[in-house]
């Protein structure tokens, strides 16, 4: 393991241990509902399901079709807000 990846693993560990990852997840989830991201993606899911067939659609189908779109559709303002929180966490905990 390189020093870099060690450092990343340590930070991620800390993020989970401190409960900050859950908090960030919850903030993101709420923001995405609020901005209509979830509705947009659900609409996209409907297209995928209609195409594949209600009986045959798998989680994998949805993940492959939806994730790229999901990433692209996150509004910049939401990204910015989350990044600020993450940076603040890093500043506090990556400087021991």
């Amino acid at each position, binding site marked *: 393991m390189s020093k*870099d990846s060690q450092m990343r693993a340590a930070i991620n560990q800390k993020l989970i241990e401190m409960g900050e990852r859950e908090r960030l997840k919850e903030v993101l989830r709420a923001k995405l509902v609020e901005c209509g991201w979830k509705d947009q993606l659900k609409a996209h899911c409907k297209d995928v399901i209609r195409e594949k067939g209600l009986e045959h659609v798998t*989680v994998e189908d949805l993940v492959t079709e939806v994730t790229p779109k*999901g990433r692209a559709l996150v509004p910049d303002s939401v990204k910015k807000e989350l990044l600020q929180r*993450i940076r603040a966490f890093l500043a506090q905990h990556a400087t021991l």
Partner: protein
Amino acid sequence: MKMEEVSMSSLDNSKLEGLAQDILSDLVEDACLGLCFEVHRAVKQGYFFLDDTDQESMRDFEIVDQPGLDVFGQVYNQWKNKECVCPNCSRSIAASRFAPHLEKCLGMGRNSSRIANRRIVTGNNTNNKSESDQEDNDDVNDNDWSYGAEKKAKKRKSDKVPFIFIVKFKSINITHTHISVCI
């Protein structure tokens, strides 16, 4: 591995920024996965397309906001001034009071005044033996008003009260009714 190993020296700003971006990316991916699982579950449980209704049928369920109508578009308070005629005493009763009236009028409730009422009509004739007897019989045969008919009949046989007792009890009932009527 301990946090102490992570020192600021190994983290220049660009690396820190890259790390922050990666964390955000992970979070977004989590959100996507979460949505996919949620949708998939909804599909398999059969409720995913439930909210898919056409505009046409949604119009039927729109909330009505007009004066004089309730949210369903029905005339508000349309029963307010309606009156019902009591099948027992033929009086007109406000619809909202009809159920409690009928209960009393037919003598089904605990404030039953039917027997007393009838006595008032026949002229407070509490000491008339034959009439009281008649009424007593009427009560005994009145089983069709209650579901515990058999039980009641048995009970009645067991509590054979001397006649004078019944008369006293009933006259108390009459005064009671009078008071409530006056109020």
